[in-house]
């Protein structure tokens, strides 16, 4: 079965640089979520999109922005990178069931290292 695709899998950037992470959801999944997992931490919710509209927002820094496109893929843009942004970034997708949400399936993650 098709899974969530994330690219790149690994990314190394310098402080103050910009990074773009991409996510391609499972076919027919219309909702995309972004999570950040620091070393030894549990995943923390950043932001989600349903039908190309932002549907929920967590502890996402103002330096980060995201969007969902017409083909349902999503991009997370990160500017003015800081050392503390080094983490594993997960994208997850789910189908929307009626007016509610459903099981989220995770991609393999993008490991971002900021030097």
């Amino acid at each position, binding site marked *: 079965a098709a899974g969530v695709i994330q690219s790149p899998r690994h990314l190394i950037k310098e402080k103050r640089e910009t990074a773009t992470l991409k996510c391609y959801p499972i076919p027919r999944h219309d909702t995309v*979520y972004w*999570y950040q997992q620091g070393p030894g931490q*549990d*995943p923390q919710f950043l932001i*989600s999109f349903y039908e190309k509209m932002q549907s929920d927002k967590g502890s996402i820094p103002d330096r980060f922005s995201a969007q969902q496109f017409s083909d349902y893929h999503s991009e997370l843009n990160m500017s003015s990178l800081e050392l503390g942004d080094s983490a*594993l970034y997960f994208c997850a997708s789910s189908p929307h069931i009626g007016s509610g949400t459903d*099981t989220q399936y*995770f991609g393999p*993650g993008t490991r971002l290292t900021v030097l």
Partner: protein
Amino acid sequence: AQTVTQSQPEMSVQEAETVTLSCTYDTSESDYYLFWYKQPPSRQMILVIRQEAYKQQNATENRFSVNFQKAAKSFSLKISDSQLGDAAMYFCAFLATQGGSEKLVFGKGTKLTVNP
């Protein structure tokens, strides 16, 4: 706001034995999902099992089963016939199904070691 607590930072089990991982949660929602995700050393987040709060029957997936106690807000995971490949970090997670918030709320995780 919902909270998820995993009180066992680490657990170990002998191969072929059974182990139970604990999880408690706090919520005022009446309708929600609970999940166990497994994160092996590859760091992929793999869905292990899902429980809908409105279902009284405990979910089962092969060697994995849950003990869901809604009144006690408890959701433990039992792994039977443990295998070396079960070694991983296990996260308990809560998802409200209504009310606008769509984020998974995770516990801090339990690191499971399987001894041969």
